[in-house]
């Protein structure tokens, strides 16, 4: 029982983290119709910035805030310099151009920070376990991630559903020309949305950094997961991204946790241990393929594509 609660919390934490990444992706994808493979690079940059700023300032929280601002700025700069020129091109161009950007960012990071990667140590108050239910202890840092991501999800909800910018975002996701016709400065709106997406990716990166390590290419694995979530959830749908992210988070964590024991009934320990993580990763792609075969535009399609 304790185990199940803990594994569910782990799944929730991972799912919410993926949501941060997918939210930015789905916004950019839905509104600007841009396939941005370089989203994972922004995730990586968030982690590098946080590690650097935390080391400078000596404070984890201050470092994280500075990193957030820095990724926002980099994101907007990337939009102005490169992405803007890709709008309206076909998706092959997007994939290639942003694949090029991945190479560029990976090498730029190698040049600036060296090939070895960094680490972002947690302050002692986050490096412990707290009692959440009688007898059940859980990592305080993972709890903090859950709280922060839920807050961000709520913020996004308010932003999208209750503000003028949100109205434009929603309008843009369902009818791009319409927004332009309303006399809105569409260029600026796009830059802001891209920056927002970058900051969300950066936040995901910097929060993962203490759990994983800060390294070149760290965005590549998780980027594909974020894409899967975006597609399952329906391109442009924040709500879809949240649901799909939780799905993927739970499948991944619970699969890793319980598959090995299931498989051990049929296979040797070594074979089961090798097969289990692969199977749970595969399940995610299987889920996507099934969703696409039956609902070719995702679960919560916004209906413009």
């Amino acid at each position, binding site marked *: 029982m304790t185990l199940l609660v803990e594994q569910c919390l782990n799944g929730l934490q991972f799912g919410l983290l993926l949501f941060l990444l997918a939210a930015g992706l789905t916004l950019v994808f839905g509104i600007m119709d841009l396939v941005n493979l370089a989203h994972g690079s922004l995730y990586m940059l968030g982690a590098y910035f946080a590690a650097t700023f935390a080391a400078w300032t000596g404070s984890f929280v201050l470092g994280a805030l500075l990193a957030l601002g820095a990724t926002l700025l980099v994101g907007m700069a990337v939009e102005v310099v490169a992405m803007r020129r890709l709008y309206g091109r076909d*998706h092959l161009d997007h*994939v290639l151009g942003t694949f090029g950007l991945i190479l560029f960012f990976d090498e730029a990071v190698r040049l600036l920070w060296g090939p070895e990667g960094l680490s972002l140590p947690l302050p002692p108050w986050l490096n412990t376990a707290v009692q959440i239910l009688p007898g059940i202890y859980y990592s305080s840092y993972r709890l903090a991630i859950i709280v922060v991501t839920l807050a961000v999800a709520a913020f996004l909800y308010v932003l999208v559903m209750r503000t003028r910018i949100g109205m434009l975002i929603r309008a843009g996701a369902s009818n791009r020309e319409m927004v332009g016709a309303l006399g809105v400065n569409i260029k600026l709106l796009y830059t802001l949305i891209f920056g927002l997406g970058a900051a969300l990716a950066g936040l995901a990166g910097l929060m993962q950094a203490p759990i994983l390590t800060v390294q070149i290419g760290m965005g590549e694995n998780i980027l594909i997961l974020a894409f899967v979530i975006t597609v399952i959830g329906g391109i442009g749908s924040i709500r879809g991204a949240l649901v799909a992210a939780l799905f993927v988070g739970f499948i991944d964590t619970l699969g890793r946790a319980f598959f090995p024991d299931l498989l051990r009934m049929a296979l040797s320990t070594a074979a089961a241990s090798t097969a289990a993580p692969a199977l749970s990763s595969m399940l995610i*792609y299987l889920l996507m393929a099934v969703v696409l075969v039956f609902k070719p535009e995702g679960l919560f399609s916004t209906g413009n594509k």
Partner: protein
Amino acid sequence: MTPAWNVRTATVVLLLTALPLVPVYTRLAHDPFLLTLFTRIVIMALAAVSLNLILGYGGMMSFGHAAYLGIGGYAVGMLAHEGIYSGLVQWPLALAASALFALVIGALSLRTRGVYFIMITLAFAQMAYYVVAGIARYGGDDGLTIYKRSQFFSPLDLSNKIQFYYLCLVLLYGVTYLVWRLVNSRFGMVVRGARSNEIRMRALGFPTYRYKLVCFVIAGTLCGLAGALLANHNDFISPATMYWTRSGDLIVMVVLGGMASPLGPWFGALVLLVLEEALSSITEYWQIILGPLLLLIVLFARGGIDGLLRTIGGKRA
């Protein structure tokens, strides 16, 4: 004759004659590694030619083409691991497995359009990646060393590097010719027509879905052949061969060389791999140049290298 014709033709003729002479040069210069590099280039060019068939001519933006490299390779590797070394068993199986995989994923993927097609082909390739990564018997993530190369009738000996190079080269020439014939046949016209206007092709009475599926399966099968060659060349196969970034590399080769150009993938593979080898020994940071270069090609030089060669002489493509 226009000068453009000359520049491009000269390059093509040079390439076609220079490739068979590579072993002669490496022998004289005592540089067997150059032969290893060129064998890799030839094999990757073969894979890129197969991708060009669906991507360049068919407009099918598959982001999972590296899966066939892995499937072809693992067919060879797994059989070798089980003690079956005959190429006459391994290779047909590699091709059949690739064709079957292409048939299944093609049948499902071709129901989707645009970016969903990109994502679903990626998903299937990742599934294949995780399947082989999950089989402990064949090394899982660690990969599988192939201790004996595929065996054919004598005197063909794949462990002789020069013979192996010529085998790869002959296959590359053959497959390139095959693809060229294919796209210029009636079948190819339909596939190319479906790329530019699928609705019109369907209105004309062509079952475009079936045409595209056949095209997709042919491309997958040919890439499976490249996979069998690659496994023999490396004496090693690992899931990394089919990771999504490898599919990205293949797309880069096709676009860099020039899409829908018969020899474009050759240029792409050659330039990319030679640059990688040459630049990485000069500067570690060569990808910082390659990355923006790709972006620039996308933005300003859609024809890739082949398009550039046409333009150099002044004749617009």
